[in-house]
């Protein structure tokens, strides 16, 4: 009899560990997928920038420092690897772009340029995409972290080597204020 009870308890524990492990692995895979989505969108955003810079340059050659800042921020973004660094580089790029568009504002011909307007539309859409993929990433990370932190999961997750994942944090205002609307 006692053997049966002990065996049953061990079986239940094994079942719990097994399902927790699988659940966490599923979540972790989702996080990685969500992360690669952000990565794709950030690259897309970076790809648009040389075009925009060269279009603006055509009308406003002497605003050198503005272009330099944008280019610098862009390469910082492309070389960033961890979520924290990427978020920071992304914020910097947003700031630099804001200046670029502020400069563009004072060139009426540029504002009427169809190519420029098209690029602007694409860029603001890509910014939406970055924001939304970040939102999805953060919500999957939150699900994972809650699971890892709650007791008794925390004990087992710790033994299995699962750790909390970092959020993709950013300046709260970035989402709406960087909208490049004229």
């Amino acid at each position: 009899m006692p053997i049966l009870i002990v065996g049953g308890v061990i079986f239940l524990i094994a079942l719990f560990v097994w399902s927790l492990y699988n659940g966490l692995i599923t979540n972790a895979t989702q996080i990685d997928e969500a992360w690669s989505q952000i990565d794709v969108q950030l690259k897309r955003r970076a790809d648009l920038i040389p075009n925009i810079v060269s279009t603006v340059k055509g009308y406003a050659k002497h605003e050198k420092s503005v272009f330099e800042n944008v280019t610098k921020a862009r390469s910082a973004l492309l070389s960033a690897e961890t979520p924290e660094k990427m978020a920071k580089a992304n914020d910097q790029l947003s700031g630099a772009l804001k200046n670029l568009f502020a400069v563009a504002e004072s060139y009426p011909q540029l504002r009427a340029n169809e190519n420029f307007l098209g690029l602007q539309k694409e860029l603001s859409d890509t910014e939406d995409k970055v924001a939304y993929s970040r939102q999805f990433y953060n919500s999957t990370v939150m699900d994972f972290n809650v699971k890892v932190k709650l007791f008794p999961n925390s004990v087992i997750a710790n033994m299995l080597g699962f750790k909390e994942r970092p959020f993709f944090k950013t300046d709260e205002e970035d989402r709406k204020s960087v909208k490049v609307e004229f």
Partner: protein
Amino acid sequence: MSIRSQIASNVVKTYVIMTLFICVVIGLAYVFGQATGYGDSYLGIALVISFASSLVSYFWGDKIVLAMSKARPATRKNEFDFYTVAENLSIAGGLPMPKLYVIEDSAINAFATGRDPQHAIVCVTTGLLDRLDRREIEGVVAHELSHIKNYDIRLMVVVAVLVGTVAYASDMFLRNLWWGGRDRDNDDRNSGNVFFIIGIILAVITPLIATLIQLAMSRKREYLADASGALLTRYPEGLARALEKISKDKEVLEGATNATAHLYIADPFKGKSFGAWFSGLFDTHPPIKDRIRILRSM
């Protein structure tokens, strides 16, 4: 209430209504069975008929609706805002990209259909694309995607099966009284007598009640889609502004019928109301004013 607690409360209310509904169907079948002495066969037959008709709408409903409303596919080039906004919100919700369609109609409206996220379709009118800005379109598309994400189309099909079952069962019961009543008189009149009277009353009332439950359910799901749409965009104001524009727009959507009315973002008939206190009971959608007020309080 916060967005998340609104979603939770709407989900609970939906389950309560569903449970009530199933109780009504079972009770009805029991009474009819007792009244006629046929046992539970009523429920069985009615369920089969109603299930078969709903199966068709479940698997081919999307194509039927699109054909009926003469929709054409949307492209990234021609409908840039609509297309990209749908792309973005699918990313946000972790959903596959839905198929997008446009209806040539100057009324402002939109609907979603499809039995699961893999077969989802979002359709908007050209009037909506012309008169709403990007943030407002985003609010509308988020509302529609939420219907898909919450499996509302599937749910409403289940509800339609139940309503249909009640209607068929009542109908069969009343016909049976007409044609088969006489034989029964001779057998055991006493045992079925009470059930007999209750049965007649129920056969008249329950189809109406079932329809009212269906409509109440539809309204709950609208509030739910508003709330979960706001959770996707994190910007309830976009949908609130869109609804404001829709409520000011007086045009009626031509392609809409009674059968498809609950799919749209706002009542396509613009509430041809009875002008009485109970008129709200017969609406597929909650009053736009209330929806805007709730969105603005999030």
